């Protein structure tokens, strides 16, 4: 009986198994899609640190893939690349989640502020409506009404910023408007008090 040498058989099995190593396309694509999704979710604005970490994980993955692709096909191994792709996807998912949470928080803060501005506009109008009217106060009232109209006009800009997803901008506008309105209302109340004091 002819004896079969074990060495060539083992070598063939080893070569066959290595030659089957393929780039983990699905895992790599999933990592890339997750990174794109994080960016689309506004991670650069709302979760910059998490996005930077995801970028680093993607860079490590790219380097490993390039290193493997430079190698002779039969000697390639994508075990580490698969691990890196999973890590990159996880990092990107975390960045996306942080971005969504950050954006929602900013949106909620801006919406609350804008609602406050609307309330303050109404309060200012009511205060002006109650302000004593007379020959001497006509110019003052007209000026204060015009000031309130100026702030009220900015509400449309806040709404546009909210609709466009520019929550940061909407918040900046709302904060400026609120501070201005509070000053106007205080002026109106001071004017009313002064008028009542004279009576």
């Amino acid at each position, binding site marked *: 009986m002819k004896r079969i040498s074990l060495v060539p058989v083992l070598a063939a099995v080893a070569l066959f198994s290595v030659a089957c190593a393929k780039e983990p396309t699905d895992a790599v694509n999933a990592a890339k899609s997750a990174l794109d999704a994080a960016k689309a979710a506004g991670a650069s604005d709302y979760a*910059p*640190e998490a*996005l*930077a*970490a995801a*970028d*680093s994980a993607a*860079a*490590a993955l*790219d*380097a*490993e893939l*390039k*290193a*493997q692709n*430079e*190698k002779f096909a039969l000697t390639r*191994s994508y075990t*580490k690349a698969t691990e890196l792709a999973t890590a990159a996807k996880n990092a990107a998912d975390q960045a996306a989640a942080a971005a969504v949470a950050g954006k929602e928080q900013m949106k909620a803060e801006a919406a609350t502020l804008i609602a406050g501005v609307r309330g303050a506009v109404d309060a200012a109008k009511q205060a002006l409506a109650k302000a004593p009217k007379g*020959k*001497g*106060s*006509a*110019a*003052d009232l*007209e*000026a204060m*009404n*015009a*000031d309130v*109209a*100026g*702030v009220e*006009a*900015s509400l449309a800009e806040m709404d546009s910023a909210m609709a466009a997803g520019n929550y940061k*901008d909407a918040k*900046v*506008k709302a*904060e*400026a*408007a609120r*501070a*201005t309105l509070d000053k106007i209302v205080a002026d109106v109340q001071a004017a009313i008090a002064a008028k009542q004091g004279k009576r």
Partner: protein
Amino acid sequence: MVLALAVAILAVELRARGRARCPPEPRLAAFAAFEKASVSPGSAWAADELDVAKDALDKALLDCSREENRTYPLRDFRAAADALKRAKELASEAESRGEERRAKVLDEAEAVVGEARELEAHALELVAKTTLPPAQRTRLQRARLLVREAEALVSQGEAQAARERALQSKKEMRRAVGPALAKAERFRSEDQVATWRDWIEDARRQSRKQPAILVLKEKNLLLLLERGVPVRRYDAEVGANALGEKARQGDRATPEGRYKVEKKKDLGQSIYHRALLLDYPNKDDRKRFEGAKKRGEIPRRADIGGLIEIHGGGGRGQNWTDGCVALKNADMDDLFKRVRVGTRVTIVGGDGSDGAFSSLLARVK
């Protein structure tokens, strides 16, 4: 036994030379430096430098991966470690450059915001003296909100947005107060000032015979002249439309011209304490009014108005009347007893010296 010892010695040697695995410390340091640089506020101003640092990091990582994929005894990570160190340095340099440029842009933005704030102060100075039409006042308020937004953006380090907002506010502010500033030009007009100076000189001459009143609108001042010199000075508030020259009823402007006290209204005869009723409109006013009507400068159905007085109720610190001149009650009492029916009253915009509007114009220009 000998073979095992040789392998152990080789392993220790290779590890000592940094050949076992990609060194984690420089790798982590390079990542950390790049991540820090890319999220730093100045990153937008160092895009090119960050690209260079990113290329260096990618190459260093590739070097690491290449070495990790080599046969164990042949691995040598020293070059990769150096590349990682260099990538870290490049990232730190990019961060520094970005911060430098951002600081410069922020300084520039702050300067523009400062200019907008200065223009706002001038506009407020103007509206403290004269009333803007509602639409322009609303526009001014919008412009002022933009200044507040620009200030907030500067404090948040958003230099570019702050600069843009400040520039927009300046533009809006000029549009809001531009017409009023154009009206204020007459306070610097040589012809107009010459006419007012003639009237002032005339009032001075008249006062040698009997007391005369001189009102300088731009300076919010009423002078009582006797024997050619001012003997009393009172703070005076004029029509809310302080820049304007009275053209018709309801324009809230104080007329400019030479008048006489037509009637003295004592306590109980005026809602503003005491009052001196002037003979507005006089012949000159009627002529000017008809001319303006003919030229279509005022509506055909407009009325010339009347009931222009010097009265009490003043001391509000702003021009607020519908065209009268208001003094504090105590000042009105003092003036009231010093004048009689027939006293000459000269009302001018200014006297050509530095007044509220002329100095404001000089600063705004």
